[in-house]
Structures are given as structure tokens and as C-alpha cells.
């Protein structure tokens, strides 16, 4: 029985059109024109408990709308959604009790209060029992290294610190599902790693289902076994990262460190991407020539110090995917 079930989800918005200029402003006094935007045009998918899914797509694709409907904030035009056996927007309070949402660019904490006081307010709001509150707080403090931050007003925190505090906040009430909307956006490298680590841990150790909306491909590569690509209100692809890659291209990359930098390397089945000093990047199709074959051929021709086999960077995959979709 899937934990989250979405069927034929449709949502449209009416956006007011503003005419420009003086005459436009006068006309606007009398008559407003509206334009219909199809935010979601028939979305279907389901998630089991404990899955960690990446939700990706270009801006305006419908990712936030999907999350808002799943979390119960927004009411769709038509379609069926069931989260833990409930319809989110119909039973808002009951549904929302078991989920947590973190917005990358917004905080749910109180701006002028020390972090710990925000947590105490949340404790009262969610009616969290004392012991559970203490346990979860202590655990988050330890995992996220929050001890020094607890007495700091939220507005004085750096972006990375605030994100950690937001994550700790959302874990206080033991949610079964977490919706994370761009949690690593704007963070420095160290914070990103810490956040990713926590998310992975929560998912693995406690079986919390995680829906991760992100543009950061490292997030996807590190955390997500499954990826759902949304574009223009429709699901473009729903599968593993590997399936995503192969949708665009099956090509792989071979990176070779040569002994001798002066060598110009060429091979009939491999295309040279670039060469910098000792290092050569090659592009090839494993359908035409297998990895072992290519390596053997090159090693025979030139002395090789080291080599790596890689997938094309996911950014490229995604870019090609979106670009292809628009065609």
C-alpha cells in the first residue's frame, strides 16, 4: 500500500494580466483580464514509505504546486491524492500533523526570537509531549551541532545555520513524511554536506519518506535513488537516476592521466572532449565499444598513469532533457 498516491492531478491558476502604460492603467480601473495557467496537467505517481525521491524540473514546472497539494495547503481542481490514507486538503489538521515541510528560502522560525524559544513555541503548537521533545531536541542538537546556536535570535544566523535549525525544528514532532523545498540553496559546501548527511540519515535510520525538490544535482546524486522529472505540469520521467541518464544519452566518459603530456591521443571509437596537460577527457558509447576494450586499446598505445570512468555530469543531462522537452 503506497504511502502517497497521486492520480490525474490537475491544477490551474488565473493570473491577472496587467497592461502597461497609461492607457493600460486606466483600462485596469474598469476591466481586469485573466490568463489561465495550467500548473499541473495530469500528474500520476505513488511513493512507498521510506522512499527518498528527488523532484526536479525547470522553474515554473509545477514542483512547488505539487508539494503544496500533497501537504494539504492547496486544493487542486481535480484528481485524487491520498497521503497515509487521507486526502490532504480535506483533513488538513490531521494530515499536517504527520508531515514536515522545510522551505529553502523561507524559515518557519520566529525572526526575533532565540532558536530555542521558537522550538518551545512549536512544542506547544504541535502538542509534543515533554519527553519526546527533549529526546528529539537533544538528538538534533547533537547531529547538527546546534548547541551554540540555541540562544541566538534567528535573524542573526547565517543561511547554513538557519537551515540546520529549520531541519531540527521540523523533526521535533516526528513527521512521517518530509517535504524539503530546495534545502541546500545558497549554502556553502560544508553546510551542504552536513544537510545532505542528515537527510540521508533520517531517511535510512527512521524510515522517514523524503520528497526533495532541488536544482542541485549533487543533492540528487548523493541522496536520491528515484527521480521524478516534472516539466510544464506533466511528469516527464519517473525512475532511477540511471534511467534518467540513459534517457538522454548512454554515453560515458573516460578520463586518463598519461605519463607523457606531449602525446596526442586519438581513437576511432572515442571522441576527445579536452586535454589539459597530462589529463585527457574522452567521450564514448559503451554500446559501440565496451569499457574494458577501450581501456585496453588506449593503454596499449600509450603509457597510462591513472584512469577513471564516469557518467556525464548530471547538469548536462538535465539541460539536454529540458532542452529536448521544449522541442
Amino acid at each position: 500500500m503506497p504511502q502517497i498516491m497521486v492520480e490525474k492531478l490537475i491544477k490551474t491558476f488565473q493570473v491577472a494580466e496587467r497592461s502597461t502604460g497609461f492607457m493600460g492603467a486606466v483600462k485596469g480601473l474598469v476591466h481586469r483580464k485573466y490568463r489561465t495557467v495550467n500548473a499541473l496537467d495530469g500528474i500520476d505517481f505513488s511513493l512507498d514509505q521510506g522512499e527518498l525521491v528527488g523532484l526536479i524540473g525547470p522553474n515554473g514546472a509545477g514542483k512547488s504546486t505539487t508539494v503544496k497539494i500533497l501537504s494539504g495547503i492547496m486544493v487542486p481542481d481535480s484528481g485524487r491524492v491520498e497521503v497515509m490514507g487521507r486526502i490532504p486538503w480535506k483533513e488538513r489538521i490531521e494530515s499536517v500533523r504527520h508531515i514536515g515541510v522545510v522551505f529553502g528560502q523561507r524559515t518557519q522560525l520566529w525572526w526575533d526570537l532565540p532558536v530555542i524559544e521558537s522550538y518551545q513555541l512549536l512544542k506547544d503548537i504541535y502538542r509534543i509531549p515533554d519527553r519526546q521533545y527533549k529526546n528529539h531536541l537533544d538528538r538534533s542538537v547533537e547531529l547538527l551541532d546546534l548547541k551554540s546556536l540555541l540562544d541566538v535570535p534567528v535573524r542573526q544566523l547565517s543561511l547554513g545555520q538557519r537551515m540546520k535549525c529549520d531541519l531540527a525544528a521540523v523533526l521535533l514532532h516526528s513527521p512521517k513524511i518530509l517535504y524539503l523545498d530546495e534545502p541546500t540553496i545558497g549554502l556553502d559546501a560544508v553546510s551542504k554536506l552536513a544537510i545532505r548527511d542528515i537527510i540521508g540519515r533520517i531517511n535510512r535510520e527512521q524510515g522517514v519518506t523524503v520528497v526533495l525538490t532541488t536544482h542541485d544535482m549533487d543533492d540528487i546524486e548523493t541522496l536520491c535513488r528515484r527521480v521524478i522529472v516534472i516539466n510544464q505540469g506533466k511528469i516527464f520521467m519517473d525512475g532511477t537516476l540511471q534511467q534518467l541518464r540513459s534517457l538522454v544519452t548512454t554515453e560515458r566518459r573516460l578520463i586518463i592521466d598519461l605519463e607523457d603530456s606531449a602525446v596526442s591521443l586519438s581513437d576511432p571509437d572515442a571522441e576527445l572532449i579536452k586535454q589539459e596537460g597530462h589529463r585527457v577527457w574522452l567521450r564514448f558509447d559503451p554500446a559501440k565499444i565496451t569499457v574494458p576494450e577501450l581501456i585496453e586499446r588506449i593503454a596499449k598505445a600509450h603509457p597510462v598513469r591513472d584512469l577513471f570512468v564516469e557518467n556525464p555530469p548530471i547538469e548536462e543531462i538535465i539541460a539536454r532533457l529540458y532542452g529536448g522537452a521544449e522541442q
Partner: protein
Amino acid sequence: MINAIKLWGRYARQAVRSQLQYRASFIMRVFGQLVLHALEAVVILALFDRFGSIRGWHLPEVLLFYGIAHISFAVAEGTARGFDIFSRLVKSGDFDILLLRPRSTALQVAVSDFQLLRIGRLAQGAAVLAWGMLTVNVAWHWTHLLILLSALTGATCMFYALFVFQATASFWTVESLEVMNMFTYGGVQTTQYPLEIYQKWFQRFFIFVIPLGCVTYLPVVALLGREDAIFHSPVWLQSAAPVMGVLFLLASLYLWEFGVRHYRSTGS
């Protein structure tokens, strides 16, 4: 219920603490409020000094109206602050955060702020009411106090409801809702005098549309044992009229839920 009170207490303590943070500035502002409202009372005294009475109502009676109006408004102003500033929550999209919590949105907004500053108006209203009670020609009985209390409760509920209505409007429009100030601040200005002194259409408006007259004029008429010159209503109706305040508040909360539903269908 207890949790809601506990929650309100926590928020209120935070609010008061941050408002008292700049203690000198706060005291200055309360003082300013006291002076402002004191001057308003001075104006009434000056008017009665020159005119003697107003359509058959004398100063002590008018002081009762004044006191009730300002005490209730001050309490409503101070406690409904969350609704007063609600429109910015909708504009910034932060209302979504409230929807993500397993509590009623109205409750969350209601407890979210508390303005200690309004204590200036409250103090002034109480002083005027006390003076009115001492000088008015009434043989005070506990039934009178009961009516007074119900009038205060009803009026507070009604002013509170007006703030809720004002906040609810921001679900539909992003324009500033200063028109509503007509009813909140205009309402206080109106009810500080006996409704009888105004013209017919005005009286009708403040009984049937925004029933402020029900929570101030009618109960005080009953208290004073005077004849209701507007509607010739029976005494029991006059005494029971403050319940309109509670009903009005319930209506405002119902409209609020309607507004939330609209917000959730159209997105932010």
C-alpha cells in the same frame, strides 16, 4: 483549550518582552497615548461645559458610554493585533506556514501578537467609566454591574470581530484595507456618545448592519432605566443585546474560514 491558553501566554510573554525591550521608548509612547486620550476626554468636558447636555443626555451618562467604548476597544486592539497586521502575512506568502501546522489558522493568528501599548487607552477608559459611575444618577445594584459587564464583553467581542473582518479581506485583495478603519476607529468614535443623538439612518446602520449599538447603547439604556427612544425596545431585549457581539464574532470567524478556503484554492 488549556493548550491554547498556554500558547497565547507564551506568545504574549514574548511580545511584551520585546515591546519592553526599549523601556524608555515604550513608556514614552504609553504616556503619549495617555495624553492623547486624556485630551479627547477634555474635549468632551469642554463641549458639555458650553452646551450643557446633548439631546437630553447629561455628562455622567455620556461618560458611561465613553468608558465602555474605550475600554472594550482597547482590549480588542491589544489582543487582536495579530489580525490587525495579518495582511502582510498573506502578502509575503508566510500564511502557508500557518496552514502547515496542526492548529486552526484563526487561533494561530489570534494568539500571535499582543500590544501592551493599548493599556493607555484602557486606563483612560477605566478612569472615565469610574468617574461616570460615581457621578451618574443610579442606585448601583449588582444587576447593574452585570449589565455593565455584559456590555463590555459584547463590545469587546464586536470590536475584535471587526479586526477579524478586516484581516479576512486580505484573502481577496492585496490593497490596503484602510476603509475598514471607518468601522473600527469610526465605531469607537460613534459609540462613545449615545446612539440616540445621531440621525435615523446612522442609528439603523449601527444596530442592524454593524450592531455596535446593541452592545453599548441598549445595555446602558437598560442600566440607566431610561426609555429607548429609537426602537422602544423592552428592557429584557436591551439587557440581552450584548449577545449580538458574540454572534458577530462567530460570524466573523465563519467568514475567515471562507477566506482561508478561497486562499487555498487560488494559491498564493
